[in-house]
């Protein structure tokens, strides 16, 4: 495992997503209301790219005909078969499913601690005044 830079914080607004490749695997990172979460970009169902899915809220119900909507912006639907995953945990929302989108730990690091990433040219200047989003993968 190593740290991989995803994007500058300033280039990563709320609601946005960014995708990086690490050793041939795609990782998609989401900014959910100022917090960052990253998932393997491969739906555990059939391998669709979660990065190309649509982000929604969560529709739940205790009883037919009654609906409760919550967690807007926190659910990713696979662009293929529509499986829904909690961006925060990778957990899927269908109780019959045991599959889980693989989450990776994500944190925000100060500009000085960049190791590698798609900006991988280590020769890139470091902007110490910006915060970069970095992923361990």
């Amino acid at each position: 495992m190593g740290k991989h830079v995803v994007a500058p914080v300033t280039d990563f607004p709320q609601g946005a997503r960014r995708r990086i490749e690490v050793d041939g695997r795609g990782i998609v990172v989401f900014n959910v209301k100022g917090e960052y979460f990253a998932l393997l970009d491969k739906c555990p169902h059939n391998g669709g790219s979660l990065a190309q899915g649509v982000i929604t809220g969560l529709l739940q119900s205790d009883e037919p005909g009654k609906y409760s909507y919550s967690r807007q912006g926190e659910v990713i639907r696979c662009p293929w078969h529509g499986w829904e995953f909690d961006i925060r945990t990778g957990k899927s929302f269908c109780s019959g499913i045991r599959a889980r989108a693989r989450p990776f730990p994500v944190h925000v690091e100060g500009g000085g601690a960049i190791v590698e990433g798609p900006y991988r040219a280590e020769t890139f200047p470091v902007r110490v005044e910006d915060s970069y989003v970095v992923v361990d993968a």
Partner: protein
Amino acid sequence: MTERPADIVDCDIHPAVRSMADLDPWLERRWIEHFRQYGALRNQHYVAGGGYHKSQPNASRRDAYPPEGGPQGSSLPFLRSQHLDQNGITVGILNPLISSQGVRNLQHSAALCRAINHWQAERWVDSEPRLRASIVVPYEDPEASAVEIGRWAGDRRFAQVLLLSRTSFPTGNKRYWPIFAAAAEANLPVGIHAFGNSGWPVSSAGWPSFYLEEMVGHAQTSQSGLVSLVVEGVFERWPALKLVLIESGFTWAPALMARLDRDWAILKSEVPHLRLKPSEYIRRNVWWTSQPLDEPDNKRWLGDIFSWLGWDRLMFSSDYPHWDFDDPARAIMFPAGDDDRARFFAANARFVYGFA
């Protein structure tokens, strides 16, 4: 996932028009104007389409929008890169689901079908050697359908005659026999693809509430069509006819065959024209495409169905670009021999469709 087969025939790809104007080159002025004013009048509720809204726009993968614009499935270059090349498809059969079949104005239906057949051949197959087309016909006008089949008979760009499953009478009904006669005469298989709008509720118990029920329900409606084909005697009349059930499911087939055989054994005095058991007709004349693959908790149970139906009867299909698409790399996720895989991914389809 195992090593990808070298030869994959995809029996179900859906090309789309960017708009109905794409068909204008092959439509008379009167039909262009007719469509502008009246649309294509079907047994569907909305100007924009069917009664059960899909779960995703165009019922398609969200990642299948072509980079140059247009709906999913409308770009040949993108079909090549995202599907044919990426998934190693050696032959792909086009099954257009564009307003035409089931249009209530039968002359309009025939005109649209003619245009779509030209469009498939000239805009798709002529430019891409891996593709084949399907002859779409105005099946509620069986005589006109026979004419359309005759028009393209012998044209190697076309692999089959295409019907939709929800016909206004059960599909084996004698009124449709000119279609089977023409297909048999032309030595073409008949493919029946799920959907269409019969004008009846989509289930035998009325109209369900949910799209989920419509999707599950294709298993039932396809069974009804198959029962009709068998019991009406279509396979008795045309013993060499090849019938392909496309996007219909197939795991229902062993139980249906057992039921049909049993009930026929009890009631055979009603149907003296049938000389074989129903299951014998089905094993001789019918093939199924694989998508949408059912998902039992234990994948080996799917393997049981393959064994019970026979590895010679099932043919891979992707349904690209629809959302419930099956990736060939993940189609057979249970133990299977190389010969069986080769049959499933290519050899059966090459036999059925006469591809060398």
